[in-house]
């Protein structure tokens, strides 16, 4: 295969890292909902923590995405 074609394959493979971010963000929101339904009165105060957790999990997926873009434009 040409190296140009392999670049596209590599960029595609790099974005596979976003699978993990998807699982992570799903976990964060799923567990929040789980806890929030058990104790709805405490849920409101934890919204900030929820979004920080989601952002931290998402950041790693974004790293994979940026890597993909970098490979594509290298």
């Amino acid at each position, binding site marked *: 295969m040409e190296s140009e074609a392999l670049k596209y394959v590599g960029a595609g493979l790099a974005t596979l890292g976003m699978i993990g971010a998807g699982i992570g963000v799903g976990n964060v929101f799923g567990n929040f909902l789980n806890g929030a339904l058990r104790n709805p009165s405490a849920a409101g105060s934890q919204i900030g923590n929820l*979004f*920080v957790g989601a*952002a931290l999990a998402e*950041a790693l997926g*974004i790293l994979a995405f*940026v890597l993909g*873009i970098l490979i594509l434009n290298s």
Partner: protein
Amino acid sequence: MADPIHQFEIHKVVDLSQFSFALPGTSYVVDPSITNSVVSMMAAVALFTVVFGAVTARPQVVPGRFQAVGEMLFGLIDGLVSSIIGHDGRKYFPYIFALFLFVLGMNLIGLFLVFTATSQLAVTATLGLMTIVLVLIVGFAKNGVGFFKLFVPSGVPWLVLPLIIPIEIISFLLRPVTLALRLFGNMMGGHVALKVFAGFIAGAVGMAAAGSGLMGGFVGALSLGGVVALTALEFLVAFLQAFVFAVLACIYLNDVVNLGHGH
């Protein structure tokens, strides 16, 4: 299909002449031209200067609709700073609030106009670097050499310390990197997705023009729905990323302000 990366290109709006200055060793060329990125940032600053000027122009005890928006934004960050940093946090409120409004302004302007300044890594990296330099300055000013206790978590057996300390140092140094990349990646990714779906509509129009009207109409309607839904999502992301940036800046400041004694 149109190139979805094309929207991130920087071009000069007002051309100013370059100048150069020399420091010992190397000489630097500075190009102070006003680019579309600079215009977008200026618009963000102007937007919130005007909005908050108007909000506080005729304050009333019972806020009207417009004043309530300003008070809500103020109260959001005020509550954030005091709940994360504690009562020492009031000193850092102006920085966090300015950071939040600046990022929020750039994100929102990117959704209305053609250019998003936060989709430039140079802009987000500068904001991330500014935050971490502030953390370093506050850390050393408040704790002196005790700042290095940040890398030695309490309650850890000393046998594993040689392993923990490098990890802590690396994670500290990665903070501005992830701070910058999160905002940059979110904004760029969202806008690329928007443009890709918009490109599908153009493709569907081409399909309809070529004869297959039913299929073209179906694909076009589906893509248009996608664009509308994604735009709504992007508004949420624009606010959320500005908020997350402010929260993380607070958390990093809290690490050095309340070093060694939680709160």
